[in-house]
């Protein structure tokens, strides 16, 4: 006869304190990054708050599975992404996005190299306008740009989070950046920050 399985002992107060300390040190420091990614994915602040809170709860429960010394930011972003896809994507209503395949990869530099090769017109474009342009990108492109250009993740880290080959990350970044440039250039022309004709 097999002996009865002893109940799992409750973690000692010392172990709990250690768990909390390591979670604060390695996970909670990434709250701002998680929020910035969440708000671009969901398209609104309240949903982003909920998504980040849920991500942190899941992460804390699974903290024993996190390998200390590895990339906590990437691990948290993976949890956030799964939570978004499984629970939020269907109910968030994101503003309509552009059809990125229909866009010529346009190089703004060629348009401005005679008048403003140093791109000083960018300085006059406010934060909200940039965020609006990002929000009009299709989801995968938006996510890739935020992970790379805002959060500074490597191609390899992004590929792991999105579960795609590195080549896909590269091509998404290329097209998303060109699309953003075009959008912001058109805006700058429209506002009279720079001469030129919007495409």
């Amino acid at each position, binding site marked *: 006869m097999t002996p009865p399985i002893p109940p799992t002992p409750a973690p000692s107060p010392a172990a709990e304190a250690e768990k*909390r300390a390591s*979670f604060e040190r390695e996970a*909670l420091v990434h*709250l*701002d990054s*998680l*929020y*910035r990614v969440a*708000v671009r994915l969901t398209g609104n602040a309240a949903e982003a*708050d909920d998504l*980040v*809170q849920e991500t*942190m*709860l899941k992460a*804390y429960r699974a903290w024993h599975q996190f390998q200390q010394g590895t990339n906590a930011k990437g691990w948290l972003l993976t949890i956030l992404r799964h939570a978004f896809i499984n629970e939020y994507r269907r109910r968030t209503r994101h503003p309509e996005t552009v059809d990125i395949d229909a866009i010529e990869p346009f190089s*703004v*530099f060629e348009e*401005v*190299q005679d008048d403003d*090769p*140093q*791109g000083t017109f*960018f*300085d006059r*474009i*406010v*934060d909200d306008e*940039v*965020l609006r342009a*990002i929000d009009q990108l299709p989801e995968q492109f938006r996510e890739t*740009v*935020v992970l*790379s*250009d*805002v959060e*500074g993740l*490597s*191609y390899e880290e992004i590929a792991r989070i999105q579960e795609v080959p590195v080549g896909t990350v*590269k091509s998404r*970044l*290329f097209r998303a*950046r060109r699309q*953003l*440039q075009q959008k912001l250039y058109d805006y700058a022309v429209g506002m009279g920050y720079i001469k030129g004709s919007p495409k």
Partner: protein
Amino acid sequence: MNCRECKEHLYEYLDRELTPAVEQDIRQHLEECPPCGEHFDFEKLFLDFLKARCRAQGASPDLKRRIFNELFGA
């Protein structure tokens, strides 16, 4: 390395995703070719601009409080 090859690696170079050898080839080309140099500078400036414009946002103090309370009790 010619201009076309150099531009093919534009973003990988700016993202520091190339091997040191290729990076060195590009750096050399950029020193010898002012038009490519200007183009790379422009793209670098654009990426810095994107980052600066998007990093102002972060989790609100209220959200931070909510998470702390939920995780560790009030």
